[in-house]
């Protein structure tokens, strides 16, 4: 019991500590692939440090929502992180049915961010909020259809149990997992506002989705938003990497190795995708998201009718 809690706490610390590093890695990969030297890998830490020192100014028209929203954002993401199994360790919060909580706790974070964006009263932020809400509508089924289909097959409803039921030795299960991981990858791309759904680097108001919502935040608020977005990216990365753990043989060395190579490979894939793909048109994004949902539905269909 004690070990479990300890492992869970260590997991959270790993997630919270390494998430900016992951973002830095992605940026570095992208820079190298486009032929630049790029910022150092630790740049996100410096950024956070810099923002942290700045003064917090809120818009005069804003209400208490704007002040509590960044904090709620971080707290919900920490809770979500606490539900995620890192490696073979049991997470801090784990009960059957926790995939629903996981999905909606992320939904809560988004909800408050949208509220805060509208609270400021700027038309820009309102537009961003509207876009975020629209695309969230399409993104949510992806999670339920992919994770839901695995949970349907394995018969478990807790993230920890679901991942532990995966056997890569079975070929058809293996292909199934690979397809699920494509779907999760597409979800990650949209949730973490990367290309081709959103361009994290652009500051052109016409094209922004996520970035536009935090335009008016500064200081500690911006720090909280930024940090939680790093955590979100890492959460999805772990969700993706966890598919490939050899859960049947619990060797720690192998686990650590897979964690490191998996993260590196994922950063590489993200980097490559962002290099070769341009941001798609706003009207094509729902289609992109629907495609991921379709993959989830296909998985569900195929597993329902195989027996």
């Amino acid at each position, binding site marked *: 019991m004690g070990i479990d809690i300890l492992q869970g706490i260590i997991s959270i610390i790993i997630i919270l500590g390494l998430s900016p590093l992951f973002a830095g890695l992605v940026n570095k990969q992208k820079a190298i692939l486009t032929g630049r030297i790029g910022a150092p890998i630790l740049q996100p830490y410096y950024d956070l440090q810099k923002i942290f020192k700045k003064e917090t100014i809120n818009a005069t028209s804003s209400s208490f929502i704007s002040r509590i929203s960044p904090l709620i954002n971080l707290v919900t993401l920490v809770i979500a992180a606490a539900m995620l199994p890192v490696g073979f360790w049991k997470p801090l919060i784990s009960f059957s049915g926790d995939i629903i909580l996981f999905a909606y706790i992320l939904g809560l974070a988004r909800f408050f961010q949208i509220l805060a964006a509208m609270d400021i009263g700027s038309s820009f932020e309102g537009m961003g909020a509207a876009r975020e809400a629209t695309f969230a509508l399409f993104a949510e089924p992806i999670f339920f259809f992919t994770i839901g289909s695995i949970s349907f097959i394995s018969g478990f409803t807790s993230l920890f149990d679901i991942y532990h039921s995966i056997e890569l030795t079975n*070929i*058809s299960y293996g*292909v*199934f997992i690979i*397809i699920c991981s494509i779907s999760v990858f597409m979800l990650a791309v949209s949730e973490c506002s990367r290309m081709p759904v959103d361009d994290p680097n652009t500051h052109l108001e016409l094209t922004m989705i996520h970035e536009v919502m935090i335009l008016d935040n500064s200081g500690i608020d911006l720090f909280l938003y930024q940090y939680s977005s790093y955590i979100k990216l890492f959460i999805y990365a772990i969700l993706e990497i966890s598919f490939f753990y050899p859960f049947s043989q619990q060797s720690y060395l192998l686990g650590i190795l897979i964690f490191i190579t998996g993260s590196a490979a994922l950063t590489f894939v993200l980097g490559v995708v962002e290099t070769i793909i341009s941001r798609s048109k706003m*009207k*094509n994004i*729902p*289609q*992109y998201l*629907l*495609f991921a*949902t*379709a*993959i989830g*539905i*296909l*998985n569900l*269909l*195929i597993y*329902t*009718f*195989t027996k």
Partner: protein
Amino acid sequence: MENVLSILFCLSLFYVIVTSRVKAYVTVLQIQGVLLSVLLIIQVIHNFSVYGIILPITLLLVKVILIPRYINKVISELEIKRRIEPTIQQMILLPIVIVTMITIFIVSSILSKNTAMDVIPFASGFSSIVVGIYIIMFRKKLIVHVCGFLILENGIFLFGTAVASELPMLIELGVLLDVFVVVFLMGITLNRISSTFKGFEVSHLGRLKD
């Protein structure tokens, strides 16, 4: 293993529905050709015969090399623009396809209770047939119609393996030859159409009416 290939086949169908480039259609045709040949090769491995290897090789040759190359040649010769020009909103077709697929899967699983058959290749093959028809219905470019026809043919092939119909080699080869000649003739016709009508879209074909 057949199920795995069918899953990949369905994925290629989804891709072909969302993509808006003509070249992507040709790539999908190649991928489907490879999948079908792998399917055949697996069957040959189970009960090996030198005679049985002829069909997969011919299939690979025709569906992966000859036909896609020919279509690519037609595309580059006619300087067809890369957009596919849908007649309905791109966004609408994907939900339609998803609903159709769900229906097909459910219906075929109900039907499989009476007859012994592999539900997944059966339903995937049938979905491919329907998707081929959707492509013919909802796209303007004639070359895309040819691709839709070939996707339909591929679906029939997958469907054939699902119902475990073993046609004689001679006839299978004849079918392949026919399909190839159809595509060849269609290519020549397209060539003529583009030089006669200065375009290659369905809207140019409206002279014949009652």
